[in-house]
């Protein structure tokens, strides 16, 4: 740990008021991101991972965000919109999931990148366009000058995602939040895009938050992993440790459910029984307890009491399971 972390999030909570009641999308999440390192946030749909990242970027409308998120030591939550706006794109940038809908269909790729550049750095159109062409080349798009004048729908899926990354890079941010950047791509293209991100990180010392539901992506790029479930953090550990020795029953369930090439022929696929919790009326205590095999066996009241927070269970390894001493047995 060299000095201040790039991004330090503490006790972040997000809830929405809806006609049916309050939806608690994120409850008390903590994590940090270092420069030059990648934090992977993994969880199912509805686990709150995207909501967390949008809250950090201040892109929620009509949601109540509490807690703290400090970028280079500057508090983002509750800061005036003007201040955050200047940081967006410039210091922290986001790569969205589906580049086809996330890029404006009416403007050329070059225009969209140049626009971001001019907003933060000013200067002439020519300079901005030159910058756009440069950055398109950096992400491995062939003939960048020609392609800068094309529209998003004229790009292939993989190219578009690269263009999306180029857009995020255009103002040289320190932090990139990538929200499922490869989910809409096929596997080979996925590998290329991930490799690109890793290379960029190495070259520029970027801090990356990789949000995904795909454990394969995590295994490939993440240094540190945060597992989320039902809006809360379940486990946090370095990637190797997480895969080798998961402590939270949910993480264990997730890893167990991965099909393995070395499994016996005809072995049944394992899954976690039950369905994800409702965020409108969440279960009491630990969000996972209705589906947890350990709780089913032990029936411990601590699982249905207060919501468990992340606790240190080993060096650099935290888990939110209150029954942890039991599971390591």
């Amino acid at each position: 740990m060299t000095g201040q972390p790039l991004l330090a999030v503490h006790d972040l909570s997000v809830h929405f008021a809806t006609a049916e009641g309050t939806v608690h999308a994120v409850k008390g999440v903590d994590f940090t991101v270092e420069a030059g390192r990648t934090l992977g946030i993994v969880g199912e749909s509805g686990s709150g991972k995207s909501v967390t990242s949008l809250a950090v970027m201040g892109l929620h409308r009509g949601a109540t965000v509490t807690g703290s998120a400090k970028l280079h030591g500057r508090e983002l939550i509750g800061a005036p919109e003007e201040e955050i706006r200047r940081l967006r794109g410039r210091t922290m940038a986001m790569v969205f999931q589906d580049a086809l809908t996330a890029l404006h269909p009416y403007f050329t790729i070059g225009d969209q990148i140049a626009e971001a550049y001019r907003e933060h750095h000013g200067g002439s159109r020519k300079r901005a366009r030159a910058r756009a062409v440069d950055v398109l080349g950096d992400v491995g798009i062939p003939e960048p000058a020609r392609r800068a004048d094309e529209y998003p729908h004229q790009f292939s899926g993989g190219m578009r995602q690269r263009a999306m990354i180029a857009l995020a890079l255009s103002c040289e941010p320190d932090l990139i939040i990538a929200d499922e950047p490869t989910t809409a791509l096929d596997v080979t293209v996925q590998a290329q895009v991930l490799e690109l991100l890793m290379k960029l990180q190495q070259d520029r010392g970027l801090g990356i938050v990789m949000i995904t539901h795909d454990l394969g992506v995590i295994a490939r790029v993440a240094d540190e992993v945060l597992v989320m479930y039902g809006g809360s953090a379940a486990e946090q550990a370095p990637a190797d440790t997480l895969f080798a020795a998961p402590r939270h029953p949910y993480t264990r369930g997730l890893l167990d459910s991965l099909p393995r090439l070395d499994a016996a022929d005809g072995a049944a696929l394992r899954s976690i029984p039950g369905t994800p919790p409702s965020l409108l009326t969440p279960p009491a205590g630990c969000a996972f307890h209705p589906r947890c095999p350990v709780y089913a066996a032990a029936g411990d009241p601590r699982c249905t009491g207060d919501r468990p927070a992340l606790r240190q269970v080993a060096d650099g390894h935290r888990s939110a399971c209150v029954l942890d001493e039991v599971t390591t047995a």
Partner: protein
Amino acid sequence: MTTPLTSAPAGGAGAAEDTATAAPASPWALALHRLRRQKAAVVGLAIIVFFVLIAVLAPVLTAISGKGPDQIDKKAVDPYLGGLPRGSLGGISPDHWLGVEPLLGRDVFARLVYGAQISLLVAFSAALLITVIGTVLGITAGYFGGRVDAVISRFMDVMMSFPSLIFMIALLSVARNVNRVVLLIGVLSVFSWPYIARVIRGQTLSLRHREYVEAARACGTGNRRILLTEILPNLTGTIIVYVTLAIPGLIGAEAALTFLGVGIRPPTPSWGQMISDSVLYYKVDPMFFILPSACLFLVVLAFTLLGDALRDALDPKGSRT
């Protein structure tokens, strides 16, 4: 195997089955639940029911009031004032609940009530025809594609390029001896069906490629069965919304045509006719002008409110094509 028409309650990313106390799960029940909460829809529906009742009970109501729509009552108008009704507010009296028409002294209440019959009859019948024709042709074009689609689409294009109001007026003035109501319904339907057909065609086109339709076809299910059980149920939401929103236009069109003198002919009472007659007197007998206009306004308003609410309830993603 119909896809739910709606997405899960806003913000509730968890499965709806989990929550015992939240909104009901079936798409229709969900829609109804949402609809009931919109006050505008309830108001609209109430107004519609009110007018439908009035129209249906017209003979009963006029029996109670004692005055028929064609009954001339010269005593109620003042011949020395150019036929203006006696008394204030257009001649409101215990005899004539909403006053009388100038010149002939016909009872306004009776004429309004029977006028409701005509207006609603024309609008509902035309709406029914439009729905049937438009849905059949729209589904056929969208589902079967190819040459069938090309022919039907061409037909729709030509129909939509007609200056409909002008043509309707011309057609209506050409035909002299045909029953006006039937003619009106026919003419209105002929020029209005392409719009719903186009929407239905678009929806059918996208539905045709859904996995469950492909699955049904792969099982060897015949076309007719697919159309009836897979495609049509998914279109009902669109159809209902469209029809509800089309009715105000039809009512307005009938009133406009009658106002211009080519629609319902006297002595059949009609709101458009009454408004047309009242224009001359609007300064001196404003009630005669206001009453039928207000009725027209309320009915159009009610259907618009209901249609909007239905659209929000049945199609919250708002695919307004």
